[in-house]
């Protein structure tokens, strides 16, 4: 296991490259998901307001 983490002496390079990739990929999942949730919530709110405004 420590051999694996050591990466033949290139641990810093290998793990930082994979770490940055992981962070960017996860960030790109979270941001659009939250945006989708926010857009749906906002549209729902707008619809409810329009309904209560009519009556």
């Amino acid at each position: 296991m420590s051999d694996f983490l050591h990466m033949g002496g290139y641990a810093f390079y290998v793990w930082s490259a994979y770490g940055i990739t992981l962070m960017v990929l996860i960030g790109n999942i979270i941001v659009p998901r939250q945006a989708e949730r926010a857009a749906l919530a906002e549209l729902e709110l707008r619809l409810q307001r329009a309904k209560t405004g009519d009556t």
Partner: protein
Amino acid sequence: MGNSRGPKNPTKLVFSSLHKYASPRHFYHLSLSISPWLAWLASAMFGLGIVGGLVIAPSDYQQGDSFRIIYVHVPSAWMSLFIYVTMAAAAATALVWKIKLAEIAMRASAMLGASFTFLALVTGSIWGKPTWGTYWAWDARLTSELVLLFLYIGFIALQTAYSDRRVAARAGAVLILIGTVNIPIIHYSVEWWSSLHQGPTISKLDTPSIHIDMLIPLLVMASAFMTYYLAVMLTRMRCEILAYERNTNWVREFITARAHHS
């Protein structure tokens, strides 16, 4: 549904189904059913690719274990080009036929393209230190890839600069089409100029200069990145569709139905 006056002419039929799937409404519902599958597929392939690349693939006889950066670097670089070409095709479609969904696909891809270009540059830079002895050089491949990042950033900035998203999309489409000249420059940079960057190892299909145990995880990772792009792009496209179509009846009906379900 809606096929009551279905055209008999096959050409018309093709165009009517094209029109149907290019309609934001149908695409929205289609994407909702596809998205979970893409997410699972991408996760599974990431898992396989990571194990293959970090554990199963043998270390390189020259570069040792530092070569394992290839499994995040090369797929990122491929995606940075693939997404740009996709955006250029969408841009042309949006400009010529004014198809809303093409604008939406283009806008939904920009952040992903910028992210993969950023990753290609950063992971390449990290790989460069142990292999070339430097994090950066003003070399043709690296510089043209940096120009690609600026094109993506310029496109994103342009989208926020206009209050009318359709005007923004048209301006962005022009920028993307002009920037297309950079794509062959990136691709051929390692052949046209002497470069620190190595030449192609994979695309020489008859005699690829990479061991099969190293190649398979790379292809798996590339498919994982591609599936990931499609999954995230669909989510972004749904957000864009809701913004474009917020005042239509189908969005109102969809939101109402959704509110009743939860």
